[in-house]
């Protein structure tokens, strides 16, 4: 009888059931969408961070920023060209290789970091900027005006002097070829040729980012000349996120030679033994190795700005509150509607009690109806939420992420110069990078589980309200003159 009655009620009072169900459905769908968008945001953030750090890196160690001393000027690159005699059209070329951010740590720091508690691995790397200037300088020629003569007339003009320059700036990263499990190159896949051999610690070989190689029309087997040193290009790497950490990858020792930074690194990439204890490891390193700045993924994430960050704030702030609010409202409405439905059926339940139905049986009947309503609403909500998440993933709106933006360290001309108060280390190597990330809304099993739990809870809340109302009815209500 329980199921017959239940079935009949739900079928014949479909509209009322649908109102309760769709309220719950809306709330649950919202929870699913907000949840999955949130995890999509996290995924996007991870992607951004990964493109900077590479896989597996939990934190980086860089030199602590020091404000420049009094009277100390910010170092600037300087080029020297000779103006050649007329007729000498030979192109001149000059490469300036500078350590990115101009701040370095001793290579020994890497071993020191590796020794700290909670550190599973530490690998050093050197980021450098290469500025290549190609061009010619012509000496001007003094020309006499015809008709005017005689020294001292001073009517000549300098003509034809000038310069024709091509400035090309790119980034290179000196990677520890003996320890390739950490560092920026891990977030790229070798798509042509090969990567470094462990033995190539001091070899004149280079791996190029495929986008840069394409732009410069370079490829495996060709040569790349930096500051007069020829490097054989052995492979191309394609960044998984579409945005590479560097244009050129070199063995660390070679990069150090080029930048005149022997035994120096800019960044130490650190993997913790336990990803749950990153903050503790950060503290240990900072305490034991003075003059360093430790930046965790979480720290870096805070420097992400742009629409990704805005959307992510929205999802975790407004979205969360909105879904909690809608859900609470849906629960309340479901409860009140069920309760109101019981009020409209006072005589029906009074009659059943008059027929000898125990209070518990009537309550169970009412609660059962409400529970099924809740489950229907939950199923509907899950379907709606999945559809929403699917739509977002299908249309995947593009979000931009700016890294290290607004940190105050301004660099002109494409070169970044560490200015006073130039923020933390990673800001310096990340420069102003903007990444386009497609937003997805992956639905996890946990999210589905949460939705099912909410559906059942919604049903129980509604059933509780209704059942409680029904249990308080008296059999004499059967005789009440209502309607």
């Amino acid at each position, binding site marked *: *009888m329980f199921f017959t*009655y239940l079935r*009949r009620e739900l079928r014949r*009072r479909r509209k009322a059931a649908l109102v309760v169900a769709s309220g719950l459905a809306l709330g649950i769908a919202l929870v699913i969408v907000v949840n999955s968008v949130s995890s999509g945001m996290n995924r996007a953030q991870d992607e951004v961070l990964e493109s900077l750090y590479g896989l597996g890196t939990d934190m980086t160690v860089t030199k602590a920023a020091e404000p420049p001393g009094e009277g100390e000027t910010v170092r600037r690159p300087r080029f020297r060209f000779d103006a050649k005699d007329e007729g000498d059209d030979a192109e001149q070329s000059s490469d300036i290789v500078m350590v990115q951010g101009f701040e370095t740590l001793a290579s020994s720091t890497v071993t020191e970091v590796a020794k700290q508690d909670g550190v599973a691995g530490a690998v050093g790397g050197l980021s450098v900027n290469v500025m290549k200037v190609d061009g010619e300088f012509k000496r001007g020629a003094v020309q006499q005006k015809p008709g005017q003569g005689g020294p001292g007339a001073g009517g000549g003009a300098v003509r034809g002097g000038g310069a024709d320059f091509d400035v090309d700036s790119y980034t290179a990263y000196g990677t520890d070829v003996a320890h390739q499990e950490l560092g920026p190159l891990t977030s790229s896949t070798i798509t042509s040729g090969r990567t470094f051999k462990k033995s190539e610690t001091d070899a004149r070989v280079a791996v190029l980012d495929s986008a840069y190689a394409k732009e410069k029309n370079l490829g495996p087997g060709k040569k790349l000349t930096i500051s007069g040193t020829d490097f054989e290009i052995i492979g191309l790497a394609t960044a998984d996120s579409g945005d590479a950490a560097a244009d050129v990858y070199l063995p660390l020792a070679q990069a150090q030679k080029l930048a005149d930074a022997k035994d120096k690194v800019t960044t130490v990439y650190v993997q913790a033994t336990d990803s749950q204890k990153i903050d503790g490891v950060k503290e240990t390193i900072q305490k034991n190795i003075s003059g360093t700045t430790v930046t965790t993924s979480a720290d870096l994430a805070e420097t992400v700005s742009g629409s990704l960050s805005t959307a992510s704030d929205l999802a975790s702030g407004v979205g969360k509150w909105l879904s909690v609010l809608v859900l609470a409202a849906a629960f309340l409405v479901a409860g009140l509607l069920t309760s109101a439905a019981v009020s409209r059926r006072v005589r029906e339940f009074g*009659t059943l009690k008059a*027929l000898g139905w125990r209070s518990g049986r009537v309550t169970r009947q009412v609660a059962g109806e409400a529970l099924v309503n809740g489950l229907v609403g939950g199923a509907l909500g899950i379907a709606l939420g999945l559809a929403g998440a699917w739509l977002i993933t299908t249309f995947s709106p593009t979000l931009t992420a700016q890294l290290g933006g607004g940190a105050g360290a301004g660099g002109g001309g494409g070169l970044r110069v560490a200015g006073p108060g130039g923020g933390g280390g990673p800001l310096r190597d990340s420069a102003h990078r903007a990444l386009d990330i497609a937003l997805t809304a992956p639905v996890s099993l946990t999210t589905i589980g949460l939705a099912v739990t909410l559906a059942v809870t919604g049903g129980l809340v509604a059933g509780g309200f209704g059942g409680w109302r029904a249990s308080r009815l008296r*059999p004499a209500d059967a*005789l009440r003159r209502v309607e």
Partner: protein
Amino acid sequence: MYQLSGVTKRYRRGKDSVNALDGVDLTIEDGGRLVIQGPTGGGKSTLLQMLGGLDRPSEGSVVLDGTDLATLPEARLTRVRAEKIGFVFQSFNLIPTLTAQENVETALVPLPGLKARERRERAGEALAAVGLGERLRHLPGELSGGQQQRVAIARALVKRPAVLLADEPTGNLDESMRDEIMEVLEALWEEHAFTFVMVTHDSALARRTRRIATIRKGRVTVKERAVDAA
């Protein structure tokens, strides 16, 4: 057998209180028939509620077959209602979403040890006894008022109760259906010999009934008279 003594039912309305029943003493023999009459608001429905264990008196005792319904614990009172008492209401009180047969079955649900099939069979028989053997699968909304009340009568009697209480069973019906319902009830009473208490204004039936109770302002007066030779 019913033995009511000093039954008072007081309803509170704010500061005032109304004695819907006021010291009612009444005895009803097993298998007997009692018609209750009286002006509106006199306390007829209230008396029926006391007899049926739907509510408890404020004072006095309602003893049915040696058990005082006034003080019986709720669970046992519920069982008395389930096993011994059948109700027929003025407004039928059928469950609109259940078929005629399922409505009748609801009266058998609280009875222990009854299988679903037995329940269905007995409900079918009870409906056949009131002339609705062909309407088992109809919903209340698809039946006329008289037919609905016959479903309600089948529901009241399907469990073979010792007592049938009817509160103006023809009150919501038009004239043509009233006699039909009264005939059905009388025939069933003749056949099953349950104790039959009915609130009604139907004078034709009253003329055929030996005991008539009149309630005015909560007080009962019982008239016993010779029955008209119908």
